């Protein structure tokens, strides 16, 4: 049977009324937990494993697929409305999305996130069905040195993309990098900068830092402004729906986000966040309205949200073809497979095609259901912004605290949340961008470990970093990204500036 026939057969299985019902339960639950910080899709699937034990394999996997995709959707909602990223992959969404929401454009922000997620989810799932075996071969070519080169590229593009001042952006990035060295060094097992505090042994949790810097810092900032602050957030200005210009500015970022997110998600050490960073940096560079970035540019929501969902589908590539879970949720889905005596891996497509194609088909259906479920809710969500400010921010505080305790029940974690909240407040007061801190915390350990692994494998020979064609290519792109703007600037600031002025029609 051809791939296409398998997929059709899968759709028939997934479209059975009972399975549609499971998919509905899955996406509803997934959206709910995605909205709540602290209760991630991984924990939800883990809690449901004993329940689904009674179901047939197809039904339970379809439910898991719904939860998985739903969680990705839900995370963007809180990011946009409350500036509280529920999981690390939606941090970038908060940057532009929340600015849009505060300018009364929460509706279009949520809509471009939802539709972008749908488009990316759809394309990436189809990609999963047809090119998974090829993608996985490509992903395996990526060893430590290639990953390190990818990280260098991410650093270069990201540090220039966030904030207006390069110096301030780099300062914030290095705070993040410093924080990322805390904890047990993965390669030697030795502790660094933990000062004997057991809670610091595993380093600083990304979501704790993100929620603290974004939500708590913001709340303090608003509170410190007192009554002088901007009077009222307009909940809805213009239509709740995307207008023609929004569509025109969104569709390319959706496609680019998918193309960036899917392969990076499929890499065993890729992860969803890197794709969102790279997509944000790319959109800022390619946008016709770069001046809007930092003040609510719709491209900055559309691209990263698409990248985020495309990488969610990408994650399933190594899971299904290699039996290699690259996220916590994928690890639990693997446990779910094993519950039925199925071993994901190179043989799964051959031994259990119905199940694999049923799963892929149900991902398509879950994706469609999410759009149907989420678009009508947008009108309801944006109403959240009409809540009087003191209530809203009190709610955000409660919500952020609850989420942190929910994820890690420890007093120390709560203390860190407050301490980083104060740091976020201070940085805001002095005009430093917040996002590079979080980026540094995420990318720092990855870059460090991959570099050290590469050097350990080569026994200290630095030339390996450049001898692989992929690594060398990525490093050249990174170098160009760094040097070209410098040259342009050196060749006459006036020329560039006048060009920009001319473009402003």
């Amino acid at each position, binding site marked *: 049977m051809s791939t296409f026939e398998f997929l059709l057969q899968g759709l028939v299985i997934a479209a059975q009324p009972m399975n549609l019902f499971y998919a509905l339960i899955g996406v509803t639950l997934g959206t709910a937990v995605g909205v709540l910080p602290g209760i991630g899709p991984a924990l939800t699937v883990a809690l449901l494993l004993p329940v689904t034990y009674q179901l047939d394999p197809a039904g339970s996997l379809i439910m898991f697929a719904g939860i998985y995709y739903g969680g990705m959707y839900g995370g963007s909602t809180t990011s946009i409305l409350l500036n509280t990223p529920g999981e690390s992959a939606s941090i970038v969404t908060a940057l532009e999305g929340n600015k849009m929401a505060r300018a009364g454009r929460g509706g279009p922000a949520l809509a471009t996130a939802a539709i972008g997620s749908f488009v990316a989810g759809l394309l990436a799932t189809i990609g999963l069905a047809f090119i998974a075996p090829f993608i996985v071969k490509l*992903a395996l070519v990526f060893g430590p040195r290639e990953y390190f080169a990818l990280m260098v590229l991410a650093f270069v593009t990201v540090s220039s993309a966030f904030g207006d001042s390069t110096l301030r952006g780099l300062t914030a990035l290095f705070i993040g990098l410093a924080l990322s060295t805390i904890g047990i060094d993965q390669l030697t097992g030795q502790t660094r900068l933990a000062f004997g505090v057991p*809670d610091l*042994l595993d380093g600083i949790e990304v979501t704790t830092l993100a929620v603290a810097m974004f939500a708590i810092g913001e709340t303090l900032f608003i509170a410190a402004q007192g009554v002088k602050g901007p009077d009222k957030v307009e909940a809805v200005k213009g239509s709740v729906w995307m207008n023609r210009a929004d569509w025109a500015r969104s569709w390319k970022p959706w496609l680019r986000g998918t193309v960036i997110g899917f392969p990076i998600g499929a890499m065993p050490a890729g992860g969803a966040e890197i794709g969102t960073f790279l997509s944000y940096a790319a959109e800022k560079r390619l946008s016709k309205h770069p001046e809007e970035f930092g003040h609510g540019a719709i491209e900055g929501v559309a691209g990263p949200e698409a990248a985020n969902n495309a990488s969610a589908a990408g994650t399933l590539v*190594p899971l299904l073809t290699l039996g*290699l879970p690259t996220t916590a949720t994928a690890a639990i889905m693997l446990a779910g497979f094993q519950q039925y005596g199925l071993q994901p891996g190179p043989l799964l497509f051959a031994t259990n095609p119905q199940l694999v194609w049923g799963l892929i088909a149900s991902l398509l259906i879950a994706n469609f259901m999410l759009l149907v479920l989420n678009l009508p809710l947008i009108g309801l969500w944006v109403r959240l912004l009409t809540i009087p400010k003191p209530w809203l921010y009190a709610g955000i505080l409660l919500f952020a605290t609850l989420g942190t305790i929910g994820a890690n029940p420890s007093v120390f974690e709560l203390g860190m949340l407050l301490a980083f909240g104060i740091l976020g407040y201070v940085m805001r007061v002095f005009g430093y961008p917040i996002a590079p801190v979080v980026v540094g915390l995420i990318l720092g350990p990855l870059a460090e470990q991959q570099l050290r692994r590469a050097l350990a494998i080569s026994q200290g020979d630095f030339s390996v970093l450049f001898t692989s064609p992929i690594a060398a290519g990525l490093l050249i792109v990174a170098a160009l990204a760094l040097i070209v703007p410098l040259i342009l600037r050196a060749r006459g600031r006036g020329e560039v500036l006048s060009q920009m002025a001319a473009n402003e029609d």
Partner: protein
Amino acid sequence: MKHIILASLLAGAMALPAYATDYTLMAPAAPGGGWDQTARSLQTALQQEGISKNVQVINVPGAGGTIGLAQFASQQKGKANALIVGGYVMVGAILTNKAPVTLKDVTPIARLTGENEAIVVPASSPLKSVADLVAALKKDPGSVSWGGGSAGGVDHIAAGLIAKAAGVDPTKINYIAFSGGGEALAAILGSQVTVGISGYGEFESQIKSGTLRLLATSGDTRIPGTEAPTLKEAGLDVSVQNWRMVAAAPGLTAEQKAAVTADVQKLVTSKTWQETLKTKGWQDTYLSGAAFEAQLAKDISATETILKDIGLVK
């Protein structure tokens, strides 16, 4: 508002079962890992066999389980219905992290499962046998890079033991730690490292499909269905298993301890548990009472020795 209502509903729903709970089971790791899976399998089996009406699993991730262990020892003291899952990785983590709370501060009940380590190479590798591996190690230990799980974990320990048994200085081994057997697998398949070492389950489907070659396994007997020798058969005096255990709270009376032990005994002989072992590919290595305590003490001192040999513990 909706959020808050939802949150409090969820919080309420999570708190409610606490009244009816017979056992509270801590998995000192994030959802998804081996300990979490063990805890959740125990939960299912305990409930289905009617040994306990309601079992609650809590995840306290961090630092090889030592964070969960510390929290467990201080908060559950004297409570006869509290259990924690742990294992060999925890023994190593306590030593390398110099953790203030050790397994002496809880009441070990029984060893439940074991998993053999597998030593694999990519199908295209020139190494065909353990003898080839030993020869390469002897020639230049640094040129053989080992890909496995976290530093100081059972994979690292096994690599150190193999080097030592082969007469190679264990501090010279070039061990590349990955965040887990899965990430290591990608590096092995991509021929980024020379040898892979991790739990057999991590590699099983790759071995069966022929993309990885199994050189040896680390248990006392061969894994059924595989042709690779044990390390002992291949001439290296190494036997190591990644085992998992269950422990109760500190400060229990002898009767309380006996009651928990009896429940666990009932569990391991149950049909549900035996089925679970089969589907998960875990070996039944049930050991309890004085025999387990003696074995645990032996494992701890042996681990300390090898971690010192590798140079991770001073």
